[in-house]
């Protein structure tokens, strides 16, 4: 230690802090070439993932539904089935006249007993509503 060092009181916390701040701002920089070299090294060191011959596809909801419908003949067959179902509901709720005539003729009878096949002994009649 030289004599001149005794003339200088040590730096205080604040002044040391200024020096540390300067060091943080003036971070030593890497060269671009060095960074490129590091990136090449990373590629070389990277485990190679084996590529699958048939990668499993992730199907959307529409595609999955289509797969199910394909079992029944595809979208056209399902459309026909749906149409028939809707038509049946509509006819049931509000049957056209021709349907009424046919069903009435088919089921026409004077008594419930005849309809039930129970004979004249059982007196059961339709009630007029």
């Amino acid at each position, binding site marked *: 230690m030289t004599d001149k060092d005794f003339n200088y009181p040590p730096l205080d916390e604040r002044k040391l802090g200024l020096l540390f701040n300067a*060091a943080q701002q003036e971070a*030593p920089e890497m060269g671009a070439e060095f960074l490129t070299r590091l990136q090449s090294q990373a590629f070389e060191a990277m485990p190679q993932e084996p590529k699958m011959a048939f990668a499993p596809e992730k199907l959307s909801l529409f595609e999955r539904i289509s797969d199910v419908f394909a079992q029944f003949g595809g979208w056209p067959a399902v459309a026909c089935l749906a149409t028939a179902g809707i038509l049946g509901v509509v006819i049931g709720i509000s049957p056209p006249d021709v349907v009424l005539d046919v069903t009435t003729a088919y089921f026409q009878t004077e008594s419930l007993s005849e309809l039930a096949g129970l004979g004249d002994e059982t007196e059961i009649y339709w009630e007029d509503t």
Partner: protein
Amino acid sequence: MALGISQNQRDAELLARFSKGDRAAALALTSRLAPVVFAQAFRMLGDRAEAEDVTQESLLRLWKAAPGWDATRAKITTWLYRVTSNLCIDCLRKSNRNSGDEVPEVADETPGIDLKLQATARAQALQHALQTLPDRQRQAMILRHIEDLSNPEISDIMEISVEAVESLVSRGKRALASTLAPQKKALGLEDD
């Protein structure tokens, strides 16, 4: 600069993708981690070529550890700081460098010195002064006051107790305060 916890989680995700052969993850990790490692190595060693060697070796070790990396066990940054610190200590011992060399004086204060130049001068003066510290003190000072790590984090990196870290930092600060005192005027650190 120290990286936050969320940053470490992102690093862990990138490392997992790196292990699966994702080149974009490799680029992102290298760009993010290499400057941190290099800065630490350069401040420890004071030599650019040696710092580059240490940076290269530190990252290579990370790539090799990637496939078996357990994200729950350690933070990537902590692990990298530790590896870099140990490589730097090995390098210093091999080169038989002596600490305690005289610190080169900064030129006398120039009237109207540019603030940017002043910051550069201060950083360089600190860097030279750091080289005069014993290796472990220098390591603790860099991690605490430049990398902004906490004492527990430093204790984890240096594999010593928190009390030992505090002791190293305390002694390092006293040493730097004395070493840099003669340059107070030249560095614009006069009392206001």
